[in-house]
């Protein structure tokens, strides 16, 4: 068990990196608290797996340090770090039984068979695979194989961190949910730090207490699921989380007031450092309301999709697409409407980063 600290981490796969573009990880400073359930969320190719492999020791970073409880482990090999990793595709040792698979990491470390037996049966019970212990691992279904690879990580006493690299990719949809809740339950029982890498926001938001959002080798935001939803610090987070994502509308700022087209949009509070010039308004579809007439941004409805629980309306205003989520009656396509934004949820972004702070508008 340990607190994991990444300090000034940079990594490049090029032997001789020139500019920022050559770096897969640009500059990472991050602390993972002991026992936390974290998700590392980001699109494919954003550097999530690179970061994971650096923590596990499969990669040595080009620059920076990794500290486990203030002890520098940057150059230690994976076996010495006491970590566990579960991969995208279940890794099992085909020729061994489930029992031998689970015992493998302990046997490699020279533990007594008595201790191994105790640990393995304990973990098997936790994973609900006790009845399969004598089955050859090659004959298991993908979800059970993935359970065994998790088990190999958890079987060791005192793992510093268990990392999951998109572990549900090959699992059938109806089993994904089951395995995910199993993971959550395991986290509560073993209390080890867990880092869960995924590009699926549902997986991230349901598993983690804290979500780290990455883009292009940088950490954009770290926060609880609610924080990410309510106050994305970057338009990327706004886009990436939510279905549909946050509406980001170009606007003009004149003396601290934001104008979308010719209509002034009331912000949640004063915008720092953006007195005049171009910026962006961010508003979640959940906080857009549609009326037939009245004050607000005039728009035309283009499409209404009924997703069951609510309806998603797509409207066009000043050549911008705006999504709104409505419960109950929705206008029909082609209708002219006015949109209004909930003021406390209307944010201002400058160059992608959050610029407004809650409070009295200027």
């Amino acid at each position, binding site marked *: 068990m340990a607190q994991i600290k990444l300090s000034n981490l940079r990594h490049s796969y090029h032997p001789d990196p020139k500019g920022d573009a050559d770096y897969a990880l640009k500059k990472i400073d991050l602390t993972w608290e002991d026992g936390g359930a974290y998700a590392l969320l980001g699109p494919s190719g954003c550097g999530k797996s690179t970061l994971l492999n650096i923590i596990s020791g499969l990669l040595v970073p080009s620059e920076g340090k990794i500290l486990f409880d203030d002890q520098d482990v940057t150059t230690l090999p994976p076996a010495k770090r006491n970590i566990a990793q579960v991969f995208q595709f279940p890794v099992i040792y085909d020729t061994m039984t489930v029992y031998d698979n689970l015992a493998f990491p302990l046997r*490699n470390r020279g533990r007594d068979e008595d201790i191994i037996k105790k640990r393995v049966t304990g973990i098997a019970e936790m994973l609900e695979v006790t009845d399969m212990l004598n089955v050859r691992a090659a004959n298991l279904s993908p979800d059970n194989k993935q359970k065994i690879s998790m088990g190999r990580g958890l079987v060791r006493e005192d793992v510093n961190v268990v990392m999951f690299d998109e572990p549900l990719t090959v699992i059938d949809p109806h089993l994904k949910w089951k395995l995910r809740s199993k993971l959550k339950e395991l986290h509560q029982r073993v209390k080890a730090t867990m880092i869960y890498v995924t590009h699926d926001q549902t997986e991230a938001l349901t598993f983690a207490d804290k979500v780290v959002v990455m883009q292009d080798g940088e950490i954009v935001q770290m926060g609880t699921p609610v924080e990410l939803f309510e106050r994305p610090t970057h338009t990327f987070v706004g886009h990436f989380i939510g279905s549909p994502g946050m509406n980001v509308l170009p606007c003009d700022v004149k003396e601290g007031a934001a104008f979308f087209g010719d209509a002034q949009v009331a912000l949640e509070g004063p915008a720092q450092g953006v007195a005049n010039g171009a910026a962006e308004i961010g508003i979640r579809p959940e906080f857009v309301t549609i009326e037939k007439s009245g004050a607000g941004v005039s728009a035309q409805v283009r499409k209404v999709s009924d997703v069951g629980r609510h309806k998603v309306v797509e409207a066009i205003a000043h050549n911008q697409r705006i999504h709104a989520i409505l419960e109950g009656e929705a206008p029909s396509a082609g209708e002219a409407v006015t949109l209004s934004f909930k003021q406390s949820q209307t944010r201002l972004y400058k160059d992608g980063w959050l610029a407004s702070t809650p409070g009295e508008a200027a």
Partner: protein
Amino acid sequence: MKTQNQRAWLFVLPVLFLVAFNALIPMMTVVNYSVQETFGDNLFFWEGLRWFEEVLRSERFHNALGRQFFFTFMILIIEVPLGVAIALAMPRKGPWVPVCLVLMALPMLIPWNVVGAMWNIFTLPDIGLLGYFLNHVVGISYDMTQDPVAAWVTIIVMDVWHWTSLVVLLAYAGLVSIPNAYYQAAEIDGASNWAVFRFIQLPKMKTVLTIAVLLRFMDSFNIYTEPFVLTGGGPGNSTTLLSIDLVKIALGQFDLGPAAAMSLIYFAITLFASWLFYTVMTKDDNKA
């Protein structure tokens, strides 16, 4: 009622035709010879199982069969581990991969009789590079036309040179298909190099190795051209393998009956050994 359309059988006909001409009819001709005696002029006399009995009792056949098994056993026990070892040592990415693959494929591209002739010249004591070197530089007396041991060493080394590549390429194909995650997981699990080989690489190579062993078994058990060109079965009969002996009986002595009986026994042994090996190797694939 289900409609039955017997015309579908027509589609099977071409295959039947092909198989009949390249396998069934030649084979039945041999079966026909094996139970008859002929003195030429296309006159045949029924002999029953006499030739089979004769062949099975003949010391000459036992000796050739023994040499055949010894040869196959030796090349398998050398080529398979050596092939796996070379495959493990080959780079898995980078500019050297194609170079290694081409170098490995080269020996297999050379025709059998050329291989035999090449090694024959290579090992000649007076002018062959290897033969001259061993006799006159190292000082070992080495002449495969005189010494059975030298002849055996040469045909085995020649086969290893010619066919280890096949095992290498198959094993290599098995190795590169192992996802990187297996090695990473093993590293995290603290597995030693031996454990990685034993529990990851070897199991993942099992299918291709089964095929490699099977191919090498069948090929080496039926080998004819290379040893025939290299030693002609000599000195004496010391390297007369089954196929060489068979050709001697069939075409040299023109004893069609015994040769036919011998071919069938030979065929049955090859088939049975291949079946046995395959069954044993794939037996526990379906076991729970």
